[in-house]
């Protein structure tokens, strides 16, 4: 077999070279490393690596069953799936209402998108200040309303910390989904709505027979991203509560990050990574399969 160097072939090679190298190193190579790491152990003092077989997996499964930190992390990460779905549903409702050009619709869209363009550091900081036990807006309002017994250390209370993180994710996340969904709605030809209106279509039927089938590809993408996002979320709890108090608001990804940065347990972290990548893979593909059962319309 003989290769001929053509200008065309050279062009394709040059255009693809860097992106492929980057992908091979930061995608493939790191994935393989993760697999190898999961069978190794690091001596915390000398940094020496030794092969330990399935030891990491055994201790990972043990602590997933017994260790309160991990059971809490797994429960919380899984709870992020319904929370992300709730956020998508609320965003869709917002998008549908704003699409009808109610008064102030443009103002609302601009304001709701605001948390998406400023740094998560700022948004979490603003939110945690609003919830500050002594100087915060929320408790201050309860004071003004005479509802002192409602006051709480929201982010420092095991009963409310996780809920506060969830509320944050929805509060700050609606604008982003809303804009993506608005884009999908705008691509629906307006005659569809006009014909519907002439037939006296109800809001629900319009939603069911026009909006949902046509923008389903966008909605299902958001659903899939929301599902896989549940397994990788950690910045929000890290910046708001640092997973506390007493690990009540920690997530799987946050605990893995801690294993690496705080304990240098690269092997154990990699074993968890493999386990959750596998679980996540199965869940995400199941959701993807489910969303594809739904009838869609190409326009």
């Amino acid at each position, binding site marked *: 077999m003989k290769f001929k160097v053509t*200008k*065309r072939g050279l*062009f*394709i090679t040059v*255009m*693809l070279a860097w*992106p*492929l190298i*980057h*992908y091979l190193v*930061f995608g493939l190579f*790191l*994935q393989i*490393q*993760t697999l190898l790491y*999961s069978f190794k152990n690091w001596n915390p003092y000398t940094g020496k690596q030794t092969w330990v077989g399935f030891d990491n997996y055994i201790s990972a499964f043990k602590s997933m069953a017994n260790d309160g930190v991990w059971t809490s992390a797994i429960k919380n990460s899984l709870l992020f799936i319904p929370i992300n779905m709730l956020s998508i549903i609320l965003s869709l409702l917002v998008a549908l*209402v704003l699409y009808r050009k*109610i*008064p102030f619709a443009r103002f609302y869209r*601009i*304001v709701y*998108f*605001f948390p998406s*363009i*400023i*740094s*998560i*550091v*700022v948004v979490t*900081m*603003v939110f945690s*200040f*609003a919830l500050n036990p002594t*100087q915060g807006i929320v408790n201050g309002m309860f004071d003004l309303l005479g509802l002192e017994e409602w006051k709480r250390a929201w982010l420092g209370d095991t009963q409310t910390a996780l809920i506060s993180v969830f509320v944050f994710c929805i509060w700050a996340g609606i604008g982003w989904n809303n*804009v*993506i969904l608005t*884009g999908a709605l*705008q*691509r629906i030809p307006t005659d569809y709505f006009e014909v519907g209106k002439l037939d006296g279509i109800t809001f629900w039927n319009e939603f069911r027979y026009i909006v949902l089938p046509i923008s389903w*590809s*966008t909605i299902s*993408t958001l659903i*899939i991203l929301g599902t*896989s996002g549940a397994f*990788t979320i950690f*910045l929000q709890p890290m910046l708001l509560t640092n997973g506390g108090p007493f690990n009540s608001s920690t997530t799987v*990804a946050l605990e893995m990050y801690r294993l*690496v*940065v705080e304990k240098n347990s*690269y092997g154990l*972290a*990699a074993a*968890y*990574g493999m386990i*959750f*990548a596998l679980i996540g*893979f199965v869940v*995400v*593909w199941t959701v*993807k399969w489910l969303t594809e059962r739904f009838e869609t319309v190409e326009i």
Partner: protein
Amino acid sequence: MIKERRSIGNKVWMIVLQILFMGYALSLIYPFIWMFINSLKSNAEFFQDIWSLPENWLWGNYVEAWSAAHIGKYFFNSVWMTAIGTFTSVMFAAMPAYVLAKYKFKGSSIIYGLAIIGFLIPTIGTFGPWYLLMQNLNLFNPLGVMLGYAGGIGFNMIILYSFFKGISWEYAEAAFMDGAGHFRVFAQIMMPLARGGVVAVCTFAVIGIWNDYFQPFILLQNSSQYTIAVGLANLVEIQKYSADYTVLFAAMWIAVLPVLVMYLILQEKLISGFTMGGIKG
């Protein structure tokens, strides 16, 4: 009669909607205004009453945040990192996107598949190997952060791919007839024709990189290299102990103001940049 009742129902419905929508909007805006008001107070005044207007407007808090808290320096770091990061990330996404969309060759669908698979496997375990790799390559510095942005095969590529797909190949053929090479056709004809997609992807990149916290937080060890997001998070940690909240509020406002102004001027373009991109599964 029925019609009248229906329109009253609609009106009530509309008022309820407006209250809900306005309430949510205020919950997003008011904390920022509250922080601005309190950023002009002395710390003692803030602890006395969180609702009052400042007795004396202490603009000195802003001077202190800018100089003592180095927000000015971080701001400059963020500007150049965002500029370079946006350019490289969009270029390295456009190159494979164009080749995959317009040239047929063995393995092209595999490369496209790589980008899709990236979304569907939640990768979290790679953090440890990445951490050690970056350490071994001596990349705990701005160069390492830049390298992270210069990927290419991923989300941006998929968006640009669909834009290139939609451009007629006749433009390129005409240029080839005139003796233009492949690179020239790409840079001078196809990239400008895909303007809409390029602008949309640049918007994603600018916002994403300006706000990126995690990679710079891990990789930037020297405080003189901090970006504004990392610097601000660091300031939050420091102020937790010294409890000098009003200066912290001022620092936060300095960090937000340029983005806020840019957003208010460009909001129409920014939001349409997001909507036109069109995420599809």
